[in-house]
């Protein structure tokens, strides 16, 4: 079955990101397909490559990134929500003349259309809100 997930909560602050990640692992383990994880609202912070939790704690952006590499996942951060909150890739940093970019490997910035497309394409769309 084809799943997509929508994540609206900030990592390290509320449990939405953790729940979405655990759910993603479980559905992949069962052999289902994960079409996309779409990060919106405070969920965009899941893609920060600068997140530096203590070494004995989970690193949520890195965990997503590794899962994406293993399973060729499409991790999409809403570009409008991301820009507002300071989540930039090299292209956007350049365009807005910002001094740095901070997107973790495996994440891409794209439009809200990707959320809608995920809802259209997937058999199940699960929202992890806060």
């Amino acid at each position, binding site marked *: 079955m084809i799943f997509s997930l*929508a994540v*609206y909560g900030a990592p390290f602050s509320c449990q939405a990101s953790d729940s979405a990640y655990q759910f993603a692992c479980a559905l992949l383990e069962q052999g289902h397909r994960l079409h996309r994880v779409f990060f*919106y*609202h405070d969920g965009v912070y899941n893609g920060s490559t600068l997140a530096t939790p203590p070494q004995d704690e989970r690193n949520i952006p890195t965990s997503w990134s590794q899962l994406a590499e293993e399973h060729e996942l499409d991790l999409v951060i809403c*570009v*409008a*929500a991301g820009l507002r909150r300071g989540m930039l*890739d090299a*292209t*956007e940093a350049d365009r807005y003349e910002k001094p740095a970019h901070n997107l973790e490997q495996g994440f891409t*910035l*794209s*439009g*809200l*259309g990707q*959320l*809608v*497309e995920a*809802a*259209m*394409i*997937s058999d199940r*769309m699960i*929202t992890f*809100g806060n």
Partner: protein
Amino acid sequence: MTETTEQPAVNPKKLLFLNRKAPYGSSLPREALDAVLMASAFGQQVTLVFLGDGVFQLKTQQDPSEIEMKNFSKTFAALELYGVSSIFVEQSSLQKRGLTLDQLLIPAKLIQSHELTELLEEQDQVMSF
């Protein structure tokens, strides 16, 4: 970044957007509205429901200029342009909050909770905001 509004070649889906948060205290209502417009641009069968504190999003006379926020309630007018006409407000939510339909800034239909129950069941996907 690539923003595509190209419509994927699948049949339109019934997508219901369930709005339960009050405006300004959270930016989620505003972000929900953007998603609704996008779904409509993609040619989907969009239904918009306001439940609980979500009904406050439609209150007339919003003016957040003093708190330096944008009056996103003006964007609700775009729903008509986008052809989104399936807009419902849950009756008891409105009543509990002392609001009437004429205090809402767009024409919305009243819906009873049991009707909403059925409406949810008819959808392909429900997007909660």
